[in-house]
């Protein structure tokens, strides 16, 4: 292996190295940080952003972006909460929320492909619309008092073999995404669409269908994330998920995925999600004020993305 290859490997692993360094440094400073309990809760917190970031990775790999995830999350949890309050069994209400989230993503996908809108604009429109509908639907007030359904409680608060259920789900979903993106024809189509849409189309790839599917997945993941939040908060809030798209996009970027599509790996996003979570959790524990936290986050993202630029 020559020097260039080694450099390339180091840069490939750049985000991972950054994560390890961050964990070590914060662990040295703070004894509270370096406990198993804290790590578990850190990963559990990160799953909320994680699901969204996985869906976002698919969309960004096709060369798009999905700004609507936070609003999709809010509106689907609002629906889910009101279904449960209206007497629907929690399991069915949650399944419905996932289906509705998928449909919302599908709608963004239709706007991007059939409507020929720029992904940024298309999802800005759906983001604004879904947020508005959430406010109208909830009349600006939270929905709480969701009863004692075991399933609803378990998905956010439960644990298996001492591991919080959201963590298990997070790792399972990660494995599924890795499999789909690397081992299936659909994964290949996603990469091909983002790498060179013209060439992919002429090679028989239905790029519209591929893009729509990516947005639908993103919507579904936003809804899943919403269900975890709903379970943990025991109520739906009209402002839930505001700004979540930014953490998701930052995670994808940290993981080395190209914003113009075609290049990137879900493993990178996984690491990116953990970096964001370690920063949030670690800075809180260290007592850094939230004003400074944003600035520190920005600096870390900047350094990571700069070091990941094309050589």
């Amino acid at each position, binding site marked *: 292996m020559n020097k*260039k290859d080694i450099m390339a490997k180091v840069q490939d692993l750049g985000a991972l190295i950054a994560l390890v360094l961050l964990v070590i440094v914060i662990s040295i400073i703070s004894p509270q940080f370096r406990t198993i309990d804290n790590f578990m809760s850190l990963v559990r917190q990160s799953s909320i952003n994680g699901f969204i970031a996985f869906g976002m990775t698919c969309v960004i790999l096709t060369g798009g972006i999905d700004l609507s995830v936070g609003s999709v999350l809010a509106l689907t949890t609002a629906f889910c909460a009101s279904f449960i309050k209206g007497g629907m069994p929690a399991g069915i209400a949650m399944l419905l929320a996932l289906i509705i989230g998928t449909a919302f993503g599908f709608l963004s996908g239709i706007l991007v492909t059939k409507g020929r809108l720029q992904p940024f604009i298309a999802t800005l429109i759906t983001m604004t619309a879904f947020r508005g509908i959430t406010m109208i639907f909830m009349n600006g007030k939270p929905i709480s008092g969701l009863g004692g359904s075991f399933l609803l409680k378990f998905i956010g608060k439960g644990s298996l073999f001492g591991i919080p259920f959201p963590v298990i789900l997070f790792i399972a979903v990660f494995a599924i995404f890795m499999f789909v993106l690397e*081992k*299936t*024809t*659909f*994964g*290949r*189509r996603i*990469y*091909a669409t983002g*790498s*060179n849409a*013209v*060439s*992919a*189309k*002429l*090679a*028989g*790839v*239905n790029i519209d269908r591929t893009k729509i599917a990516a947005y639908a997945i993103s919507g579904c993941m936003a809804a899943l994330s919403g269900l975890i939040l709903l379970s943990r908060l025991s109520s739906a809030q009209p402002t839930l998920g505001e700004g979540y798209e930014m953490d998701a996009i930052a995670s994808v970027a940290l993981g080395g995925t190209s914003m113009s599509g*075609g*290049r990137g790996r879900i493993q990178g996003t996984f690491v990116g999600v953990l970096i964001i979570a370690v920063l949030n959790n670690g800075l809180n524990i260290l007592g850094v004020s939230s004003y400074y936290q944003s600035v520190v986050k920005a600096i870390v993202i900047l350094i990571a993305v700069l070091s990941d630029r094309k050589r």
Partner: protein
Amino acid sequence: MQIEMRGINKSFGGNPVLRDAGFELADGEIHALMGENGAGKSTLMKILTGVYTRDAGTVIVDGQEVVYKNPQEAEKAGIVFIHQELNVLFDLTVEENMFLGKEIHGKFGICDKKAMRKEVTRILDVLGVKIDPARKMDTLSIGQQQMIEIAKALMVDAKVIIMDEPTAALTESETEVLFKVVRSLKEKGVSIVYISHRMEEIFELCDRITILRDGQYVGTRNISETNMAEVVKMMIGREIGERYPERDVKLGDVIFEVKDLNCPGVFENVNFTVRAGEVLGVAGLMGAGRTEIMQSIFGNMPGSTGKVLIEGKEINNKTPGDAMKSGIGFITEDRKVEGLMLEESIMKNISVANLKKISHNGVLNAKSELDMVQKGIKELNIRCTGPKHACGELSGGNQQKVVFAKWIFTDPKVLILDEPTRGVDVGAKKEIYSIINDLAGRGVAIIMVSSELPEILGMSDRVMVVHEGHIGGFISKEKADQEKIMTLATGGKIDE
């Protein structure tokens, strides 16, 4: 301006690209620079114009040793490089393009439009081309855009103009205009370095020729004292034999039919058939609608109507995916934009058109994928480090072979080739011709669109000529010659 380059060495990341390369340019001559892809022609010229720095060697301009640090310095000295990928901004006008970065302006940076218009008009007059300076660049043909690039060179008072494959995208008549301009520049004392793969053009236009091979200087000849065979031999270091390999194929039945293909404003009443094992050459001027007809057959031309039949049955060709399923393959004209994902590996590029073949229920089988790709690399003799080699780093010829591999594995009954050897060097061209012959031998019906008449004549069993969106006529292999094709291509009639 006289230029002498001697003993030039250049390596990229440890790979020597130029080893003891050299070149000499006299006053007012048209000097061809030839060599296979990767021979180092462009690199040598980029060193001359300060795009790259040299590792060793000397460059002497008008008796003085020089080092240009960047293209701007070379331009100031009067050496301008017109790249193959034209350097134009499509949304700006001709005038704005020409004055980009050197606008004539008064106080506070306010542009002096009158002065600029005057200068543009003067230069276009010198070139003898009529183009409205206020037109948007994207409304111009590629030939006209090239003229603007030359005009830009004249604006900075260039004494040496380097042209890299200037005719690659030009029609026959645009090429003639270009040659006229080049000759008139020569009379004004401007020297031209002419990089091209087209032997016929070089022998028509140039005074001298310098040949590079594997980054080394091979020799310089006066055009009047050499011939194509010698030049080819110098380029590849061995005899290549016939440029167009023999094909001995028994033509089968008609397996492909196009009936009443129409697309308003683009082409009309297109009808033709192709037999199994036949190579149908499609000739015509650029813009005649050849590519559009092929795109329409492949389901990539919204608004077109008509029937396409394979083995007597009408097929569904609403989208490229449908056309593929019906057994049509399409190797497009621009492999960098339409044919390949340049950043991706050979493997991913070949696989993307064959995902069904290497998967089960949507899950890829890594082994059958690798087997397929390795078979492709071996059979088509793709020179690379392995299946993971990025396509953008391959030479033009090898890139084109990847595109061929991608389509061959789809087992097409009909394969459409649009400019299959554009930007491909002589050696690789012959390999591609052999691949085409091989496919025809297996009974594939081949439709080959090409702007190179020698290629059409050398490869086709039958020639179809397209003129302004209509079929101008068909000529059989025995009767085809350049004159008949050009007559039909320009709207004339021939007796047959």
